[in-house]
Every structure is written in structure tokens, then in C-alpha cells.
């Protein structure tokens, strides 16, 4: 079996002491930063990106992957204990998880979240190993037209899954596409919209924009109501970490359902992990015999979404590793990290650098195991960390981000740009624009433009190539129908309902 040979190879790579250490550090640091309220996964990964620069590529990516799911795990810890979701994917976890914590059952809630995540992680790891090779073959059948259509589909997904107005989400994507065009043109080398500023000739750094829009903007926004930020911390000591037998029995089916749902949604481009947790929560509520228990500390409401978002977080590596298309903003940062190490993500990576790909896949499983072993005993420390007042935390985050951005290129201009994007991000939040689609647009922009140009060049300027090639036509048709469905009033109401439910 090819798959298992590959996986075994991956484990051999991942189990080397240095990579194990990277994985451990990544998971720990990721959790540490993820636990701090006000910093989401994207900001965490962006902030910690520079610390992986000095490492060899395999170690760096293993560490980044560790940071990623560590941050996710940290996010669910805060949402259970303090009702502050560290990130969008754990918003729904907060609904029932925090209620459980209030009833003194924080321990089981955290344990179930960890167990669910671990199980989902295991399944997703196997899934990546199985699907990786065939999808890579599929990728070889992709021409520029198909790539372009696939990216359109991904962006439309991001629109559908974004909160609030569809028009605003599309506008954010287009703004991201425009921002991605700053700098040198790929084909002609002409300097575009750079105003003769030498630092802009290379384009806007993705990490710079991400840090500005997600890091600085969040800090500024939190300062708005800093004093009022009411953290109703669960004060009582967390006792009885282990869930009871009844808890386990209750949460097994939701974990299974969440895993399946999350795995499917994660593969689709466009921010799968967020919608996976929402969808899992809605599903559990629909299936429950007594839906009124939800929102009052139902363990199913923790188990389902947590497994779903972890499964989705991991399967979202599939489009990245096989097609080279980042399905969400965190994966986009991964692309940034890979490019810094001289790796171009895409179908070739699987063949040319099996160490990297399979090592990373194996390390995901190890990372999940580490999270469950290390973090459950460490919950007490994470809780104490939450007591650090924001007035001390935010200047520290500012400095950390500033040093991080500076060290990417040793360019002070990057830091200024990040500050500017911080203000832009603050403005966007104030006007109810979501920054995540912007980031995705910015990442996919160069890829999209390149493939569009290439496709039109091959077809000699004939735009119908996108609908005459069957694969491309199917992808575009799916994208259009999705968009139409979202705008339709009936479904729209449904979608709004899902999102508002998560807020209350």
C-alpha cells in the first residue's frame, strides 16, 4: 500500500527528535497565544511566522502547523472558560461550553473538546493521506482555465460563508484582489500602483497586511471598549477533568457526525473551519431529542462543533498541498511561509518533497496527541494566563507584532504599512466589512490573474474557454448557483439565522 508507505515515511520524518521538538514548541506556543483573548488564529500565525524563519523548511512548517492547531485549541479553551472565543471557529463552542463551565463542569467540557478534536484530527490525517495522491493526479488535469474557475469558486465560498451582507463580502474580495496587484507585474515587470516607492515594488507583504488588519486592528478595536470588556472568568477551581461515562456516551455520535461534516467542508475552498463548526452545531440541535437543552450546557454542543472545526482545519491542507490553492487565510499564511523557504505549493511538492508533505501530515497527528496530553494538565496555567489584564497585554502584543513584521524583511516601511492597515482594518470593522475575505482575495489575486492571463493567451483571447472546458464549466456553474442560492431570500434568512444564533 502506497499510502501507508508514505505515512510511515512521514512518521519517520516527524519522529526525529528535532521535528518532535518543533511540533511541541509549536503546539505550546500556539496554545499560549491562542489563549490570550483578542488574538485570533490568523493573528497568532502571522505573529509567530518570523520565529520559524531560522529553521529548516520541514521543521518550520511542522512548527507552523503546530502553532495553527495549538491556537485553535487555545481558542476553544478561552471560549469555554471565559466566554471569549479566541477566534471565529470556536464561537459556537462558547454557547454551550461556557454554560457547562458555569455549572462547574468546565473540566469535562475541555476534555470532550480535546478528545473530539483529537479523534477528528486522526480521521482527517488519514483522509489527507488517502486523498492526497489521487487529488494530485487530478491537479495535473487542471489547466489555467480550471485553476481560474476553481479560485472563483473558492472566493464565492468565502462570500457565502462570510457574515452579513453578500455585497460587502464581494467588495472585500475585490479590494483584496486590487491590493494584490500592487507591485511588479508578473509578465511585463511594469511597476503597478507603487508610486515609485521602492518598498512597494515587490508588492504588499501578505504577513504585513494580515498583521495590520487582524492584529493591530483588533487591538485598537478592543481598546474602544477596553474598560467595559467584561471577562466573567470562571473563578472556581476546575475539578474532575475526566468526563463521566454518560458524557462519553452522549458525545460519541456528535463527534462522529462532526468529524464527517468537518472533513467534507474543510476540503472545499473558502474558510471551511468556521462554517463547519456552525453547521455541526445546527445539525446537533436539529437531531437532538430535546433541543431546548442547547444553550444551557449540552455536551453535544461542544463535542460536535469542536470535532468539526478541527477536522476542517486539517482537511483544509488538502487543497493547499495538492492544488497549491490556499482555502483560507491561515493556509494563505502557510503559503507565505513556504515561499519564504523557497517551496512553491502545488502538485509538484508531493512528488519533489515527500519529506516535507508527509512529515507535516504525520506531525499533525502527533501534534494533536501532544495537545491532548500536555494541555489538559496545563489548563490551570492557561486559566491563570487569562487573568493578565488587557492593559498590560496590548502594548506587549503591539511590540511583538512590530518586531515580527520588521524581522520579515528588516524593513521599517513594512511596520508603517502594517500600522496603516491596522487603521484600515479598524475602519472596516466599524463599517461592518469582514476582513477575512479581503485577505483571501489578496492571496489568490496573483494566482488568479496569472491563470486568467494564461488561459486567455492559450485560447487566443476567447473568453468562452471558461465554459467550453467541461471541468471549468462545472466549477463555474457551482460557483454561480451558490451565489444565486445565497442571495435568494429564503436561504438568506436561514444563513442569517445561523450566524445570529451563534452570537446570542
Amino acid at each position, binding site marked *: 500500500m502506497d499510502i501507508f508507505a508514505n505515512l510511515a515515511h512521514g512518521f519517520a520524518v516527524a519522529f526525529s527528535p528535532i521535528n518532535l521538538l518543533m511540533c511541541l514548541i509549536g503546539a505550546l506556543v500556539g496554545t499560549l497565544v491562542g489563549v490570550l483573548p483578542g488574538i485570533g488564529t490568523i493573528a497568532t500565525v502571522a505573529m509567530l511566522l*518570523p*520565529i520559524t*524563519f*531560522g529553521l529548516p523548511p520541514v521543521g518550520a512548517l511542522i512548527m507552523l502547523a503546530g502553532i495553527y492547531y495549538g491556537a485553535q485549541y487555545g481558542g476553544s479553551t478561552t471560549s469555554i472558560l471565559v466566554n471569549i472565543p479566541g477566534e471565529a471557529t470556536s464561537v459556537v463552542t462558547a454557547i454551550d461550553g461556557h454554560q457547562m463551565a458555569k455549572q462547574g463542569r468546565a473540566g469535562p467540557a475541555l476534555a470532550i473538546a480535546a478528545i473530539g478534536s483529537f479523534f477528528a484530527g486522526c480521521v482527517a490525517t488519514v483522509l489527507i493521506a488517502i486523498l492526497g495522491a489521487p487529488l494530485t493526479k487530478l491537479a495535473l488535469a487542471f489547466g489555467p482555465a480550471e485553476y481560474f474557475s476553481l479560485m472563483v469558486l473558492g472566493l464565492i465560498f468565502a462570500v457565502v460563508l462570510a457574515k452579513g*451582507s453578500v*455585497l*460587502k463580502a464581494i*467588495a472585500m474580495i*475585490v*479590494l483584496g484582489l*486590487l491590493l494584490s*496587484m500592487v507591485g511588479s*507585474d508578473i*509578465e*511585463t515587470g*511594469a511597476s*503597478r*500602483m507603487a*508610486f515609485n516607492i521602492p518598498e512597494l515594488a515587490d508588492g504588499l507583504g501578505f504577513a504585513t497586511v494580515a498583521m495590520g488588519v487582524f492584529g*493591530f486592528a483588533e*487591538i*485598537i478595536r478592543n*481598546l*474602544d471598549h*477596553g*474598560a467595559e470588556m467584561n471577562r466573567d472568568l470562571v473563578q472556581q477551581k476546575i475539578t474532575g477533568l475526566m468526563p463521566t461515562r454518560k458524557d462519553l456516551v452522549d458525545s460519541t455520535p456528535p463527534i462522529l457526525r462532526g468529524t464527517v461534516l468537518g472533513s467534507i467542508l474543510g476540503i472545499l475552498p473558502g474558510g471551511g473551519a468556521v462554517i463547519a463548526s456552525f453547521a455541526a452545531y445546527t445539525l446537533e440541535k436539529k437531531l437532538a431529542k430535546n433541543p431546548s437543552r442547547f444553550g444551557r450546557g449540552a455536551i453535544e454542543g461542544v463535542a460536535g462543533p469542536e470535532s468539526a472545526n478541527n477536522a476542517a482545519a486539517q482537511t483544509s491542507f488538502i487543497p493547499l498541498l495538492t492544488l497549491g490553492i490556499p482555502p483560507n487565510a491561515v493556509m494563505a499564511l502557510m503559503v507565505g511561509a513556504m515561499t519564504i523557504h523557497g517551496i512553491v505549493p502545488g502538485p509538484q511538492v508531493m512528488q519533489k518533497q515527500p519529506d516535507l508533505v508527509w512529515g507535516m501530515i504525520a506531525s499533525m497527528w502527533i501534534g494533536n496527541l501532544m495537545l491532548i496530553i500536555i494541555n489538559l494538565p496545563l489548563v490551570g496555567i492557561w486559566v491563570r494566563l487569562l487573568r493578565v489584564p488587557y*492593559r*498590560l497585554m*496590548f*502594548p*506587549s502584543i*503591539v*511590540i*511583538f507584532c*512590530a*518586531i515580527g513584521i*520588521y*524581522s520579515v524583511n528588516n524593513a*521599517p*516601511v513594512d*511596520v*508603517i504599512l*502594517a*500600522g496603516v492597515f*491596522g*487603521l484600515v482594518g*479598524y*475602519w472596516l470593522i*466599524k*463599517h*461592518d*466589512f469582514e476582513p477575512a475575505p479581503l485577505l483571501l482575495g489578496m492571496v489568490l489575486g496573483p494566482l488568479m*490573474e496569472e491563470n*486568467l*492571463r494564461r488561459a*486567455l*493567451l492559450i485560447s*487566443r*483571447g*476567447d473568453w468562452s474557454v471558461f465554459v467550453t472546458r467541461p471541468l471549468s464549466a462545472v466549477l463555474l456553474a457551482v460557483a454561480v448557483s451558490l451565489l444565486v442560492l445565497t442571495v435568494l431570500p429564503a436561504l438568506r434568512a436561514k444563513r442569517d439565522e445561523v450566524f445570529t444564533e451563534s452570537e446570542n
Partner: protein
Amino acid sequence: MADTMGHSATATRNTRLVVGFCLLAIAPQIFEFIWSIGTIFGWGAGRGPVAVVTSHVTALLAGAPSAIFGSFGGGTKKVSSDVLLALIYSYPLFVVAILTLFMTIRSAQDYVGGVVLMALALFALWAGSDLQGMRGFSFGAGTAPRMFGGLLVALSAGIALTGLLTDGPPMAHYSWRGPLFVVAAILFFALSIRSLGLVVTAYASFMIAAAGSHETRWLEAAIVGACLTLGCAILFPSVLGLPMPMYPRFLIQ
């Protein structure tokens, strides 16, 4: 009575918005003027302030209108970038500003968001106006920026329209303290990291950023800032091997 009061309230609101949009319409010109003041002292390159003002004023008042009428006459004279800025960016925004006078805005959040986004898109269109367009059936450097710029203009117009047609939230409240000090800290960091080194810069930026919250206790912040600076000084250059200056340049030399 209440009705008239409500009406006058929206009227004052609208005039404020109109003034804001007009300022936005000439924001790039104002920015270039401020930037050009630096050239008096020999900082940076570019045109002097007098040249900037005269060029933009003539472009706004004379150049652009004549270019519009000239185009009716079939003139293909090359227009300067200032005139283009007035044509592509400023005039459409002035039009929007004038239209705003006669509108009842039902959701200021959407309306203002849409208009500012439109300004950004128009600005991008201007910034990309010197780039080459289609060459036969192959894309030029400017084709894609123009495509997406045009799309964004349309989308933002749509957003502004929803602000006129549907009820929604008013403008959100902006606070000034947080943004000001956080951005000041970032700016200070960027401007002084090269010359002052990590230790001084990080500590000073920490203290500046700390001023952004009114709950800051200074003694506490001073101690934490010192610890953080020490931590960063050990972590980044030594452990992670990222090269950056540690101490002020004048101390080392």
C-alpha cells in the same frame, strides 16, 4: 415638532458628510502638498509645495474641464497625471458629495462605507491609469487592475445604494485615544529601530502604546515593559537568530 427636529438633524449630518466627502475628493492632492513641504528642508524628492498647489489647482479648475470638452472634439492630446487625478478621482467624488446633499441616508454605516470604498477604487483606477492595456488578445499590465477597479466601483456604489434604500445602523462611534497611541507606537518603532536599536525602541514603543488605554497604571507598565524588552532582546536576536540592531548606533560608535 419632533419631525422637524429629526429633519434638521439629518440635514446637519448630511452637510457634515458632504464636507467630509469633498475633503476626501481632494485628499491625495492635500497629501502630496503636505509631503512636498518636506522638500523645502531637503527631505525626500519631488515637486515643491508651490508647484504642487499650482499644478493641482489648474488641473482641478481648468485642465480637467478642458480635457472633458476636448475629448468631445476628438482631441487625443496626452493629459497630465494631475488632470487625470482630477478627472478619475476628484470629480466623481464631488458629484457624489453633491448628490449626498439631496439624499436621505437611512444607514450611514453602509453609505459612508460604500462611498469611501468607491474613493479607494477610483484612486486605484487612477494609480493604474498609466499602465498598458490590452495588447491584441493578451493582457497588459493594466488590464487586470482596471477590471477589478471597475468592478469595485460598481460594488461600492451598490453598497452605498443599500445605505440609501434600506434601514441600517448609523455611523459607529470612533474613539481617538486607542488608535492614536497604538499607531504612534508603531510609527515610533518603525522610524527608530534602525538608529536606536531594539532595546530603546521596544521599551519606548511599549510606553507609548500603553498610553492608549486609560486604565494603564504607569509603574506597573514600566516594570512589565522592562521585562518584555529584556525578553525580546534575548529571544529575537539570540535564540531565533534574527539580525537586528540592539543598542543605539551612537553608543556603539
